């Protein structure tokens, strides 16, 4: 056979084979390019379009009260979305959705068309729809014919089953279920779960073909609060009643167990419904927790701590006589609210709420010890509860105090405190002299783990036990015979202290005619089970009239709820209220030092009444101290032996706050 390539046909066939082979080689080269050289690039493109990393939300932890009542819980709800690009008939889709969700059809249709024009492949129609709407849309989505363009995404929604109860403690969450107030914000990191992720292999319609769990979602911890929802309810009811009766502007109540520091209830007014998101037109102050965000001059309630400090650090006894009436400290006149008082026992000073008497006690204690005790009671510091926005109050460093600061702080001026701080300090008196740290969280439980109880801080002794008991009895006197008679409880003994501080207008730099009316008390006296502090701002009446009845309403119910045995006969005649009241004295002033929180009034020293300096000469140190104590005269002792000289001399009128210097020698 001759070579076929001799013929034209043979050569042309060979050429065709070469062309085909070349084409084949080109293809092979291209395959190497795509499959070997650019493999990584195309793999990434493939992963990008085929796999979606879908976040699987972790359920947010629930918030429970101390008895296990649910205060906040997350429930699954649907959110509706569409892909505007894939809607075959946007107008019809819009009217179906508008019908089901009660939306405006034309607006929705316009929005969808707008997104489609901007090539948006995703659009929320409405988030967190109601279960009824969900049902309607699901029946459409999976009906005949299925409207599979309706996208439904399961989302989690926070629900507060008790409505407004404990709203300020609980706080609220934003659209992403992140806490934006209260314990929801304070314990965000624990309540919030760790979202899981699922790698979903999807087809071109973004329908999942198969999914593999990349990271398991970790639900948030359940948090059990120290709050007792029943007491909280009573507190809010009583607070609202008082607020509405007295037309006060803001108010707060804290109920605390003085032994454990557990906050059994904490209420603030005005209040809000955490189920409703913040919206325009709502009271901007309603979400503030007045129990610890807004410090105020405590006024007379602070006298309790002055007396306790004096009992603990000086020779003052409840029976010691203190000079009362109008006194001058520096260039300022300290008077009583309504009545002129003569010298009274320390107990009476508290019962009648004498400013001058308390100031005397404060000056006796002295700046250094006053500062130390006030700080030990917790003033000037945050209590450390896990709620955002806590104020430490206002307390200047002792170096910045003037000569009379201890005297002013003694009746609750030159200091600003929060309701919560007062509850903490009052607990020291109520529990026998031990410090307590307010506790809001009882335990936390991570899913699948045992609950972890919050550790209570180690109690530290602040007052001698006898001091605490004496102070308690003095406070009982206030309720039995003094300004706090409106706080008498049926069936229970109680102790307390009223307070009415003029509200200082920082803008106008003057005290207003509105009062910060407060009541701080505990019950029963022998072994107090609760401490209740009530503060109402902007009331035009005194604390005894405004705040004490709130204490009465709250304490009586709370003790019953806590099943505390009664220690008094059920029916006790309530002594009618006297016409006098405590209160502060500071007449309207113009030149005030805002940091000092105090108005100053230049006064004529001639009108000032001060104690007459006794003759200490020839007496022993012990006798001198006892005599000075009983008269309420501050003394400074120098040397040992018998009193030889004194300044000022006997018979002189002692300027208020000035001690008598006594020199002893053998």
């Amino acid at each position, binding site marked *: 056979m001759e070579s*076929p390539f001799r013929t*034209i*046909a*043979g050569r*042309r*066939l060979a050429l*065709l*084979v070469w062309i*085909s*082979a070349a*084409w*084949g080689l*080109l*293809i*092979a080269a*291209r*395959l*190497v390019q*795509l*499959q*070997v050289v*650019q*493999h990584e*690039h*195309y*793999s990434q*493109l*493939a992963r990008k*379009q*085929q796999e979606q990393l879908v976040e699987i939300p972790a359920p947010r932890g629930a918030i429970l009260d101390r008895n296990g009542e649910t205060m906040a819980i997350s429930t699954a709800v649907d959110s509706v979305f569409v892909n505007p690009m894939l809607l075959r008939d946007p107008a019809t889709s819009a009217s179906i959705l508008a019908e089901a969700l009660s939306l405006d059809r034309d607006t929705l249709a316009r929005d969808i068309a707008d997104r489609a024009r901007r090539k948006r492949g995703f659009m929320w129609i409405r988030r967190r729809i109601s279960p009824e709407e969900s049902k309607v849309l699901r029946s459409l989505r999976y009906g005949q014919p299925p409207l599979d363009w309706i996208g439904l995404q399961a989302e989690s929604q926070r629900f507060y089953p008790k409505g407004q109860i404990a709203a300020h403690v609980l706080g609220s969450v934003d659209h992403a279920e992140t806490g934006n107030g209260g314990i929801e914000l304070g314990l965000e990191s624990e309540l919030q779960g760790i979202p899981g992720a699922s790698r979903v*292999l*999807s*087809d*071109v*319609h973004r329908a999942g*073909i198969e999914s593999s769990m990349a990271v398991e979602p970790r639900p948030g911890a359940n948090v059990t609060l120290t709050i007792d929802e029943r007491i909280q309810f009573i507190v809010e009811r009583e607070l609202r009643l008082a607020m509405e009766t007295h037309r006060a502007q803001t108010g707060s109540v804290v109920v605390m167990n003085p032994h454990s520091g557990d906050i059994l209830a904490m209420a603030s007014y005005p209040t809000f419904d955490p189920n409703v998101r913040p919206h325009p037109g709502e009271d901007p102050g309603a979400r503030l927790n007045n129990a610890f965000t807004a410090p105020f001059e405590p006024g007379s309630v602070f006298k309790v701590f002055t007396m306790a400090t004096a009992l603990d650090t000086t020779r003052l006894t409840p029976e010691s006589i203190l000079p009362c009436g109008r006194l001058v400290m520096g260039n300022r006149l300290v008077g009583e609210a309504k009545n002129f008082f003569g010298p009274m026992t320390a107990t009476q000073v508290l019962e009648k709420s004498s400013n001058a008497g308390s100031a005397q006690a404060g000056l006796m204690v002295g700046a250094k010890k006053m500062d130390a005790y006030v700080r030990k009671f917790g003033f000037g510091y945050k209590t450390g509860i896990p709620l955002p926005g806590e104020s430490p109050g206002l307390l200047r460093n002792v170096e910045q105090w003037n000569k009379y600061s201890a005297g002013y702080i003694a009746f609750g001026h030159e200091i600003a405190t929060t309701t919560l701080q007062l509850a903490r300090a009052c607990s020291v008196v109520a529990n026998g002299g031990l410090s307590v740290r307010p506790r809001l969280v009882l335990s936390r439980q991570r899913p699948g783990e045992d609950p972890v109880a919050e550790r209570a801080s180690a109690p530290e002794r602040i007052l001698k036990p006898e001091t605490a008991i004496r102070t308690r009895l003095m406070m009982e006197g206030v309720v039995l015979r003094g300004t706090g008679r409106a706080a008498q409880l049926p069936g229970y003994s109680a102790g307390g202290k009223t307070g009415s501080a003029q509200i200082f207008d920082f803008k106008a730099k003057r005290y207003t005619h509105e009062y910060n009316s407060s009541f701080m008390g505990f019950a029963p006296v022998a072994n107090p089970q609760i401490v209740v502090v009530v503060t109402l701002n902007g009331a035009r009446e005194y604390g005894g009239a405004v705040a004490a009845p709130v204490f009465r309403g709250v304490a009586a119910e709370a003790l019953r709820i806590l099943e505390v045995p009664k220690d008094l006969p059920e029916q006790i005649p309530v002594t009618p209220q006297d016409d006098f009241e405590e209160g502060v004295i500071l007449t309207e002033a113009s030149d005030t030092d805002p940091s000092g929180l105090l108005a100053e009034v230049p006064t004529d020293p001639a009108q000032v009444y001060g104690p007459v300096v006794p003759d200490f000469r020839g007496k022993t140190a012990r006798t001198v101290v006892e005599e000075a104590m009983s008269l309420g005269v501050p003394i400074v002792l120098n040397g040992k032996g018998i009193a030889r000289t004194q300044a000022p001399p006997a018979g002189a009128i002692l300027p208020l706050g000035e001690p008598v210097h006594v020199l002893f020698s053998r």
Partner: protein
Amino acid sequence: MAQVARTDRSLFGVTIALVFFGLVMVYSASSVMAHVKFNSEYYFVARQAAWVVASIATLLFFKNLPYRRLRNPVVAFGGVGAVVVLLALAYWVDPRHRWIDFKFFHVQPAELAKPAVIVFLAFFMTHRARAINNRHTLMPAALAVGLVTVGVVLADLGTAVVLGLTAGAILYVAGMDRRYFVALIAGSILFVGAAIASKPYRLARVVQFVDPHYELIAKIDPSGGIREYLGRSVAARSSNYQADQSKIAIGDGGVTGVGLMQGRQKLFYLPEAHTDFIFAVIAEELGLPGTMGLLLAFGVILWRGMLAALRTEDDFGRYLALGLTVSIVVQALFNISVALALVPTKGITLPMISFGGSSLLSTLAMMGVLMNVSENS
């Protein structure tokens, strides 16, 4: 040379291997889609399997039918005539699909056009071998081929291009003068160009192949008239998309492939995964061995077919073997080139692999004839 018919084992083996490999790949590429659309993952593969049986029977029939029996004016003219009638019928009955619906299957006359034209040209060229460059030979040939091609173009430009190249190859090897050949090529280019421009989607595919984002078009035609024309076709929007998805599938397959049945691009990313873009599925799932193996298989067909054309002593057999080989191999090369985005997207199946009964039947019939030529060469 002994005229004892002995099987061309490599050609037969490769063909059968490709057919069964195709069946597997059709299942892999279509099962998810079939499940979603027809609620049965076997919807396509079951039909294809039936066609495989019929097609192999046809293959064996033609393999054992002496090819010289086809050298018959009745077969040659009748075939072309029947195809023209069928094409017209299909276009008239079902202008959208251009197929004839026989209840259980559809016949695509365009697929039948290839063997008909090849047999006709082989017959005609053999008879007019001495006067090939005579207009009395060329005109009727061109007329017949042209008539069929027009009919096919209306249905399927890709097949028409394959048909044109096959006819060109036969005329070229039959000794057509270079100047006629150049004229033929020029005419074909004009014809194909006109065919492309006549349909927005075809033009869009070609334009997007060179100018994916219409940047060039915007410069040439600031008024936007061309873009408007291109935009008339819904399919045009997706033509680049198809090529991109195909490249992703092939590139993702890499050297080793993601594994049989493990491909993901067939999950509706890749259009026509079981027909026009089945090569991309093979590349994704089986990697470089799959693609190179496939290329090699068609290389074997090219080699054996061309060898048969070269060795056979009678012109009819030569042109027949040449035309059959070229049409199958060129179609395969075209299909693969489309999948690799080397040429613009056009609807063309991968012979013996893609889903499609008419195509498989016609291809295996052609392979049967080719084997018979090869065995007798």
